[in-house]
């Protein structure tokens, strides 16, 4: 049975996710990245189901809580979430370069290479699947960042919020932790112990980004902002 603190953190995470979803829908940010809305909804649904499983786990007459609070269900939901995260990275990559046709070929090449490498590693590699998928997601985000750096592309505030949230979190709590675990480093356990709190901070960052006022850049005409894909036409 999980501790009261774990329950409280899970509940806080769900409330945070609901706040993010309402903020995203209110400001129409879902139109900038549909797969992120799918990701938020998937996380909310899976964690709610898991939370219900935790709460009713020890009720003798009920069987479903044991199914929802099991390793099989955990693996299923993790795989689903990792795949949606990959979709977020791909959609972000395509949308960031949408206004810049000269970058399409390079962006497509980098994204395809990252996706193919991830698929090959998951299919033929002997490493655990979830960290591999998370690493693939980071590679995709890094590919997007590389195109942005090379061509000095402007980024919409929401895309920056997604990149600034996902990349450090996945980098530390998936890739780095997985490497340290495989090397038997004690630091991996310490990182794992603060994962839930870090995830809560990540949700808080998204909530702040979804609810804060629209960003304005002074002295730049709306036509240029539309041309750069930073304002709706």
């Amino acid at each position, binding site marked *: 049975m999980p501790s009261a603190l774990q329950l409280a953190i899970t509940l806080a995470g769900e409330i945070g996710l609901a706040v993010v979803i309402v903020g995203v829908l209110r400001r129409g940010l879902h139109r900038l990245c549909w797969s992120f809305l799918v990701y938020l909804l998937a996380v909310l649904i899976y964690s709610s189901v898991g939370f219900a499983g935790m709460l009713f786990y020890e009720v003798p007459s009920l069987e479903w809580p044991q199914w929802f609070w099991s390793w099989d269900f955990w693996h299923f939901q993790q795989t689903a979430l990792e795949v949606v995260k990959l979709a977020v990275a791909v959609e972000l990559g395509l949308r960031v370069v949408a206004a810049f046709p000269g970058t399409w070929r390079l962006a497509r090449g980098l994204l395809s290479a990252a996706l193919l490498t991830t698929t090959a590693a998951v299919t033929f590699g002997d490493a655990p699947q979830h960290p591999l998928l998370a690493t693939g997601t980071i*590679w995709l985000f890094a590919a997007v960042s590389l195109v942005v750096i090379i061509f000095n592309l402007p980024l919409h505030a929401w895309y920056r919020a997604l990149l600034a949230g996902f990349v450090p979190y996945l980098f530390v709590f998936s890739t780095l932790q997985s490497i340290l675990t495989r090397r038997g480093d004690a630091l991996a356990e310490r990182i794992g112990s603060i994962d839930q709190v870090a995830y809560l901070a990540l949700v808080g960052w998204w909530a702040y980004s979804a609810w804060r006022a629209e960003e304005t850049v002074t002295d730049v005409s709306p036509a240029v902002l539309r041309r750069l894909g930073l304002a709706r036409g």
Partner: protein
Amino acid sequence: MFFWILGSLGFVCVALVIGQAARYRHERTVKQWDRMLSPGMRFAVQSLELEVQADAAMADSGFQGAQQARDRQDLAEAIRLLELSSRAVEDATPNRLRRLRAMAVLIRMAAALVPVRPLRMRDYHLRELIAVVGVGAALHQVLVSALERFLLRLQVLGVGFRLALRVVVGARRQATSAPASRRPWGDYERALEDWKTLDREHLETFKALAKSLEMQG
């Protein structure tokens, strides 16, 4: 061991990219793009468009007048007009070559805006030019970045201008020495057509690169 090294290298590369991306400054970036897309550069593009049209019109009208004079058997007038047409091409080409060299320095951001496509062989008539454009198109497929493709395009245009000019001048000289001969007139016509096609491509390239000129300035 190999995969471990490869993985570590990839890990470091990703960390470097993330570190570099963290230095992104939104307002500065947007203002740079705003300057690049400013009306000042659009005006420069319009001026060049006019220049390209005027040079093509001068070369064309001289050549057409020369052909008409030749048809009337007024060979002296035909040669005089042909020389006028040739002079327009000869005067304009060094200017084009200078601009192409300058453009080579300032291409990165413009490459983001305009997809680089290779020149098309079917648009040209001179065999030498078709060969150069064909080699350029093949290299275009081999190169990876938009930056390299843009530089290749400038090189192909530069070589193309030189070849077209050489044929224009050669045909003009041959026509001067043997005005009744058909071949130099045909060569001149094909070379002039190719020169104008190259000039339009050079204009398209400039339209893209002009945006970064102001940015760098």
